[in-house]
């Protein structure tokens, strides 16, 4: 297990293996997202209360899941970077921050679009919406720190600490709807209980969630590989790679 862990720490190894995985994740994401979207938008039944407007759930929920998962991954890689001084963890953290911010924005935006016809308002300062907005600002904070600090190692350290501090927000987002009175309804999908969604709607939603995760895997591999080339540009293997025209010799 430790040898795998140390291998994972090698940017060169990740560059190679990531390049092999990338097309498969991209392919899976393409198939799942198209299947899930067509199924969810055209074939899933309308809701008894909300009619067709609930269908935005097929984008809203996967985006919100990813927004929180990506932050957790950033905190874990921040910890790995701080403790084991693993460069790859720093690069991953830097590469996925804008992706996480995009998904958070997407979740907030689709939530607002959904809120207008159902609740009657775009925005309300309840605990769930506010904590999600704070998550967006945490992502912006990580991106700003990364951009403001010249030295890559110092920047990585600062971002890792911010990611670890911001981790506190994740359980707050998750349990906000249970701890306080909110306008946002409690979760429909729970690990421990039966989902409160009819299977005809649940299956396309699960497909979309897996599709979003595959999409994220593909995007994060691409961005991390770019980051590796940027940071390792002075090493012999990157120079050799450039000379052979980018093909793995």
């Amino acid at each position, binding site marked *: 297990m430790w040898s795998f862990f140390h291998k994972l720490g090698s940017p060169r190894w990740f560059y190679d293996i990531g390049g092999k995985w990338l097309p498969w994740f991209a392919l899976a994401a393409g198939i799942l997202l198209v299947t899930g979207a067509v199924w969810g938008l055209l074939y899933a039944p309308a809701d008894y209360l*909300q009619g067709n407007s609930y269908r935005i759930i097929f984008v809203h929920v996967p985006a919100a899941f990813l927004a929180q998962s990506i932050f957790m991954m950033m905190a874990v890689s921040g910890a790995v970077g701080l*403790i084991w001084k693993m460069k790859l963890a720093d690069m991953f953290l830097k590469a996925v921050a804008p992706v996480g911010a995009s998904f958070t924005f997407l979740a907030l935006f689709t939530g607002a679009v959904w809120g207008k016809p159902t*609740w*009657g*308002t775009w925005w309300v300062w309840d605990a769930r919406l506010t904590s999600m907005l704070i998550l967006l600002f945490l992502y912006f904070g990580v991106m700003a720190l990364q951009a403001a600090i010249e030295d890559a190692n110092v920047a990585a350290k600062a971002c890792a600490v911010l990611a670890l501090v911001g981790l*506190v927000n994740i359980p*707050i987002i998750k349990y906000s709807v249970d701890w306080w*009175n909110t306008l946002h309804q409690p979760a429909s999908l729970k690990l421990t209980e039966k989902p*409160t*969604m009819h299977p005809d709607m649940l299956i396309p939603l699960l497909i979309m969630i897996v599709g979003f995760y595959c999409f994220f895997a593909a995007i994060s591999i691409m961005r991390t590989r770019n980051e590796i080339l940027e940071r390792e540009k002075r090493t012999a293997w990157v120079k050799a790679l450039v000379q052979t025209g980018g093909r793995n010799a």
Partner: protein
Amino acid sequence: MNPKRKQRLIIVLFIVFGCATAIGLVLVALNENINLFYSPTQIAAGEAPVDARIRAGGMVVEGSVKRNSKTLQVDFQITDFAEKVTMSYVGILPDLFAEGQGIVALGRLNADGVFVADEVLAKHDENYMPPEVAEALEKSGKTKDSMSPAPAY
């Protein structure tokens, strides 16, 4: 694990748990202020300030909605199944507003204990199902809430 890494691990754990404790204490202290709305029980107990802009939330009582035939005035009651609050609102209600549905209203509590709302938002629960299933559930005498453990208002 070598001692240096162990030391750094301890620092990382300290950051995470230290922040979690600090934020946790703040949230516990602010608990009441984070709630979006007052429940009818809280209003009946006099916890909600009179004549200040507050939000009140609950389920619209079945059969309590009275519409004025000439204006947009609507009077109704909300409940949390313990207490009831009478509300009065002038304006267009959201599509999901119905008897038995959850709502959150923004307005003032007047001296007579009537909540004068100037904004009504609809709340929906976490149950999603096709109309036929909802109908079948209703026919069999079960409410949709039997799918979820807690009343969803």
